[in-house]
């Protein structure tokens, strides 16, 4: 699946997107976060505090308990700050 990182998460991870195949026991967003954190110190740093990280699966906001299923695209980013 394609994993996307935005804003300061991208800075910490060191890339904007990557194609990864998580192991079969990764079923929820929380599982994915735990697995991604083992990929590098940058990943671990970016995903250290999930209180301040938002997630979207196939471009829909979801919580940590969300089951990823056959998702094609998972994005991690900080709370949004558009507008004025």
């Amino acid at each position, binding site marked *: 699946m394609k994993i996307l990182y935005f804003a300061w998460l991208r800075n910490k991870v060191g890339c904007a997107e990557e194609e990864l195949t998580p192991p079969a026991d990764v079923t929820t967003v929380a599982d994915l976060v735990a697995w991604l954190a083992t990929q590098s110190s940058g990943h671990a740093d970016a995903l250290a505090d999930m209180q301040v990280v938002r997630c979207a699966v196939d471009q829909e906001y979801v919580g940590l308990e969300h089951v990823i299923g056959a998702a094609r695209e998972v994005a991690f980013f900080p709370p949004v*700050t558009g507008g004025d």
Partner: protein
Amino acid sequence: MAVKVQADDFDLAAELAAMRAGNHNIGAVASFVGLVRDMADLGDGGRDQVTAMTLEHYPGMTEKMLARIDAEAQARWPLEASLIIHRHGRLQAGEQIVLVACASPHRTAALEACHFLIDWLKTEAPFWKLEQTPDGDGHWVAARDSDTAATEKWR
């Protein structure tokens, strides 16, 4: 009924004229324009000079969320037309960032829907601001609780 995500600036008068062109049911047009301020909140009560900012977004999801917010406004108020333009990329202090406009037969729906759209957009649309200060360091703007509270009041 129209959503645009673009790097280019927009002409407020031209956009509003195009939005209401030919529709004589429209008796009221309300609009909101957001600008890049040259002062940033540092979070510790201090302020810093901002020379420019870069607005990053999530292409694809941004358009989808804006269209959904727009559809929600259409469902709640009797609107004849609506428009959301949100810019991305590098913007200088004083530049226009966002335009929200609503047209309806009477003022109340246009004003309320316009207020609703900008409040919802701020907490639902995936944009992030990187502010550049004169010392060269950029810092990512943190979300504000007051913005979340502004959205909550419409639920």
